[in-house]
């Protein structure tokens, strides 16, 4: 990939003049608001951008960000991180996963710790790199520990397709794919929830389409704008939301029109559907049990499922976070990271106690890293 093309993807979307102009327009709309508005950016990528670029510092007093649960490693409960650790510690196993997963500590330690103890743990840029590792290590079992929302699920599905088509016998899967809309509903239903509107993650909608959020304006009376990740995208999306409030509209809108359509990528959806089905329940760290919120391999692909094959080895007892951790409150918008007594003291990115501190996309980690300048 040439760097020129890459630059074109973001350069205009960080332009200081455009940012200032949008902030001004947001200010004008905000003045017309009848009450304070709490906007949840669901995705960790948005949280990261907001805090990195300091967009929250530019907001009028009556606009508040609530940092959502959209960071796939943050919401993975400790017992599942322990699965990765246990699998990695098997002598004949090479555990492969995406980079974000390596540092996250379970109850025994992180994959990084497992590696220091001799485990073979590797991170990938593309799940398809697993094929190469499997070919180079025919005497080992390669377990792909799959994490992520709808954005990364098609890549796992593509890898499964290759494994089946090429008859590869030494690749297994541990599936932790989760879905965005279900936790949004749970958060809206929570008594203490302050959420008035959502900024929807655009990369998820590139795959699943914007329509997965249709029920929020329709059934929950909560508007959604599907947004890109650059500062200009986020500000533009905010402006669209504020206009909805001032014009008494409640709709699903797309800001990220350069890649998102209402229906999404139908080919990818079909591929995912072939291999995966919904789990009846999945426990989210910081939130709790959410029905129909995660995927597992369908019964007919059980022979590829490390979770089933190694079930004797994998603990399922629920492990909760530190008692004083307020990640649940933070995810509902009832508290800010700095209000937690553990924040920055007992709980830091190098030794996180709660889900929001775990990855750079978690609200606490983003605040810690980039400072709470407001």
């Amino acid at each position, binding site marked *: *990939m*040439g*760097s*020129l093309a*890459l*630059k074109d*993807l*973001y350069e205009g979307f960080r332009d*200081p003049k455009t*940012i*200032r102009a949008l*902030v001004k327009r947001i200010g004008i709309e905000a003045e017309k608001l009848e009450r304070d508005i709490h906007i949840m950016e669901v995705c960790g*990528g948005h949280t990261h951008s907001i*805090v*990195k*670029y*300091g*967009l929250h*510092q*530019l907001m009028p007093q009556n606009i508040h960000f609530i940092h959502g649960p959209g960071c*796939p490693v943050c919401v993975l409960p400790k017992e599942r991180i322990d699965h990765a650790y246990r699998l990695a510690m098997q002598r004949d196993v090479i555990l492969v996963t*995406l*980079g*974000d997963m*390596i*540092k996250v500590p379970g109850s025994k330690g992180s994959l*990084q*710790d497992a*590696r*220091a*103890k001799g485990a073979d743990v590797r*991170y990938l*840029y593309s799940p398809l790199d697993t094929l190469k590792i499997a070919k180079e290590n025919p005497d080992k079992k390669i377990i792909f520990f799959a*994490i*992520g*929302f709808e*954005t*990364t699920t098609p890549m796992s599905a593509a890898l499964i397709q290759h494994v089946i088509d090429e008859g590869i016998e030494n690749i297994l899967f541990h599936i932790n794919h989760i879905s965005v809309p279900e936790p949004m509903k749970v958060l809206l239903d929570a008594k203490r929830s302050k959420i008035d509107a959502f900024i929807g993650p655009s*990369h998820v909608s590139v795959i699943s389409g914007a329509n997965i959020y249709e029920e929020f304006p329709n059934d929950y009376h909560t508007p959604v704008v599907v947004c890109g990740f650059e500062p200009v995208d986020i500000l533009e999306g905010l402006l669209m939301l504020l206009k909805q409030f001032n014009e008494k509209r409640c709709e699903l809108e797309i800001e990220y029109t350069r890649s998102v359509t209402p229906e999404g990528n139908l080919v990818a959806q079909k591929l995912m559907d072939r291999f995966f089905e919904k789990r009846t329940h999945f426990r989210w760290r910081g939130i709790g049990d959410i029905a129909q919120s995660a995927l597992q391999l369908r019964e007919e692909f059980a022979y590829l499922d490390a979770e089933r094959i190694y079930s004797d080895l994998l603990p399922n007892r629920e492990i909760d976070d530190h008692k004083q951790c307020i990640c649940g409150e933070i995810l509902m918008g009832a508290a800010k990271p700095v209000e937690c007594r553990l924040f920055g003291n007992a709980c830091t*990115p*190098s030794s996180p106690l709660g889900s929001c501190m775990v990855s*750079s*996309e978690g609200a606490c980690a983003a605040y*810690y*890293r*980039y*400072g709470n*300048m407001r």
Partner: protein
Amino acid sequence: MKTIGLAHGNGGEENGRLIEELFYRHFQNEILQQAEDAAVIEEGKLAFTTDSFTVTPLFFRGGDIGKLSICGTCNDLAMMGAKPKYLTCAVIIEEGFELSELEKIVLSMKSELEKNGAVIVSGDTKVVPKGSVDRIFINTTGIGEIRYRGISSNRISQSDLIIVSDTIGRHGASIFLEREGMEFSTALESDCRSLWPVVEKLIEAKIEIKAMRDATRGGVAAVLNEWARQSDICIEVQEEKVPISREVKGVCELLGFEPFTLANEGTFLIAVEPKDAPKTLEVLRSMEASSMAEIIGEVTAGYPQKVLLKTPYGTSRFLELPSGELLPRIC
């Protein structure tokens, strides 16, 4: 059972803690506690430093482990205003290492020594069984003659200006791509090079150098944070002034890295009083190794011991020490 993880060698938070809580605690003495790039000994006449080198791949775009092992130690001396003079060289080689590769490394060391006007005066060779080390480890230790006294990370003061000598993050970004076998059609290469010729020019120009440090592991973020802490100052950096090449920006964009925390091997930071800044820039820009030099920030009383990164649209954030291992993000 606590064990050493890769993060303990990252030049950032964990690395710093290990050094302070173990090595400094037990080796405690006045010279060591100065925590400078090189120790200043013999009443300020000599600078003394050591560094060990391990890099994958051994031969990379812009250099190799041999060149790196001379630049690394000589640059640490140069950063204390010292002319590199005498070096020792110890190599630990894995059984089976190709002799022709070893010679390539040695020749590259020789050529880099010449640029510094330094010589290897003592050495040691160990060969260990296959698997005991990753191909080859090199340690160099160096003594330099201090030509400019008083450089210290502990005496930067309010209103001083911070200058960076070149575009940042090139070594870290290019090594990462090569190590991971990622094919990029770019001109990106390591900035690995000797800095003494540049420093010599600065001294000749009679610039009053307050602090100077090459931004190796942990990158510019690590140096600025160490300075802020050691001198008890706030450093405010204008983000848009920091020179970053298009290639490094692209790599960071793609993998979710921060250019400020990527390693450099021939790019340094210098703190000077405002009166010396124009001359410093002029001298730096006259040399190829520092032609892209820029004033990137100034020292204020804002947030003591913190580094503040300011955007052109009026927001700011703290630039923290890098922590953990360099890992790409998924989305």
